[in-house]
């Protein structure tokens, strides 16, 4: 009797699940790198005044992030520089290691999106976008950039969107989630109009201080508390979008909420719907139940994946949100990142895995 082994063919490679990671953070070695793309006038401004956000500290966060550079302690590149600043090391530790098919960049550390000084906010946003292109997406085709825009200056934001729209390396638009006003307000609508016009999703990564506390009730004592309140601030932002009528006015607009988890999504929908029966007349511009907009216009990245004690509860949660609404994300190289192999503590079918780890993101971002 003899045994033979069927040869593995290319079909195996085709059916292999490759991951789309919807939250990868590249970092500049320092803000001085901006000078490569800043006009001389703004180089001078950077040297004289530096970057300034609406927060008490200039070179760190109002809440220390529990780990240096808020990163995994094993993510510091051996060649120096902060985590996320070395493409080769990112390839080795992350992109190649997990066989990432696409990584969606979210540049946060040096940014113009919520820079205080008008004009400089625009110049820094432009420079960050050029940097994403020159140092990341042009060098590794797996990486996709985001058009970072100075949200408080809608006109400048639209100009920046128009500059990049249609470029195959840029697949979404980013602005901070805690802006000067709730993001549903009409001052931001030109950005949404441009996004809908070009078919570009808006990636809303939790970010920004803007003078408001992340927790509605005031400034928390602990990083723990601030980190916890992020989900609530994103729920408030989502309600603002819906109740101000953004998805009603721009039905094709895609809003991707990044790094807020998703456990809060069902209760937000239920609560808004129950209020709608009583308070609909206050928002007559809404023609559908709030939860319908929630399920039509919003997507959520998975990290940090909720970890209920009973894994079945995670499945029920996703059942309500929709298996087509979640986009896998690691948040590499940050300390609270998720490993695609272990992040979900529940059983998933092959089809469910393919949707969450790749298919949904490919559909939203048209990859």
């Amino acid at each position, binding site marked *: 009797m003899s045994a033979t082994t069927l040869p593995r063919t290319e079909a195996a490679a085709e059916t292999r699940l490759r991951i789309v990671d919807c939250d990868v953070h590249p970092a500049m070695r320092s803000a001085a790198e901006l000078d490569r793309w800043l006009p001389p006038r703004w180089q001078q401004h950077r040297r004289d005044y530096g970057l300034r956000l609406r927060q008490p500290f200039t070179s760190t966060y109002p809440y220390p992030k*529990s*780990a240096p550079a808020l990163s*995994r*302690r*094993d993510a510091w590149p051996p060649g120096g520089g902060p985590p996320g600043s070395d493409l080769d090391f990112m390839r080795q530790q992350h992109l190649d290691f997990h066989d990432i098919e696409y990584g969606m960049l979210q540049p946060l550390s040096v940014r113009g999106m919520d820079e205080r000084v008008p004009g400089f906010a625009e110049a820094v946003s432009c420079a960050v976008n050029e940097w994403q292109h020159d140092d990341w997406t042009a060098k590794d085709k797996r990486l996709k950039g985001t058009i970072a825009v100075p949200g408080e200056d809608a006109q400048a934001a639209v100009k920046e969107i128009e500059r990049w729209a249609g470029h195959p390396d840029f697949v979404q638009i980013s602005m901070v989630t805690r802006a000067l006003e709730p993001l549903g307000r009409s001052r931001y609508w030109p950005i949404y109009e441009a996004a809908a016009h070009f078919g570009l999703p808006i990636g809303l990564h939790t970010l920004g201080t803007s003078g408001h506390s992340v927790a509605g009730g005031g400034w928390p004592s602990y990083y723990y508390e601030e980190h916890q309140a992020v989900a609530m601030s994103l729920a408030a932002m989502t309600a603002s979008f819906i109740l101000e009528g953004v998805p009603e006015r721009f039905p094709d607009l895609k809003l991707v909420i990044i790094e807020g988890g998703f456990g809060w999504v069902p209760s937000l929908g239920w609560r808004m719907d129950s209020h709608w029966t009583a308070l609909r007349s206050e928002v007559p511009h809404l023609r559908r139940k709030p939860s319908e907009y929630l399920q039509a216009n919003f997507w959520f990245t998975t990290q940090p994946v909720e970890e209920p004690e009973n894994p079945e509860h995670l499945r029920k949660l996703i059942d309500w949100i929709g298996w087509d609404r979640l986009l896998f994300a690691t948040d590499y190289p940050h*300390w*609270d*990142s*998720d*490993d695609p*192999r*272990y*992040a979900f503590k529940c059983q998933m079918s092959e089809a469910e895995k393919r949707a969450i780890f790749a298919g949904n993101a490919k559909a939203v971002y048209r990859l």
Partner: protein
Amino acid sequence: MSKHVVAAVSDLPAGSRRQVTIKGRPIVVFNLSGEFFALVNRCPHQGAGLCEGEITGLVTSDRPGEFHVSREGEIIRCPWHGWEFDIRTGQSWCDPSRIRIRPYPVEVAPGARLVQGPYVAETVPVRIEEDYVVLEV
């Protein structure tokens, strides 16, 4: 189970740790002020290599506003999500009965005894005048 020489005591000073691979298993060996302990080098949460984590102590409190620091150097925090583990036992601080890392027995043996066998020496040359860290896996 078999015994493996993983380091000379002089190469693993107090407060240090080292990652070794024995029988294909990643293991981290700690020197805690002259006592040696070994744990699987893999966090049970999401698989990070513990060896790269921060070694620290325990901060505890009986009431808000008061705190105690104890067991300095006996706790390792995962390099990713910061979960705390007792280096002596592998137990997690948050859920010690359910979440734990497998420990391996470790002993210190003089080179003179080791050269007589039956230990399996892994890449560490043994000299009779030195002491060695021996892991049972």
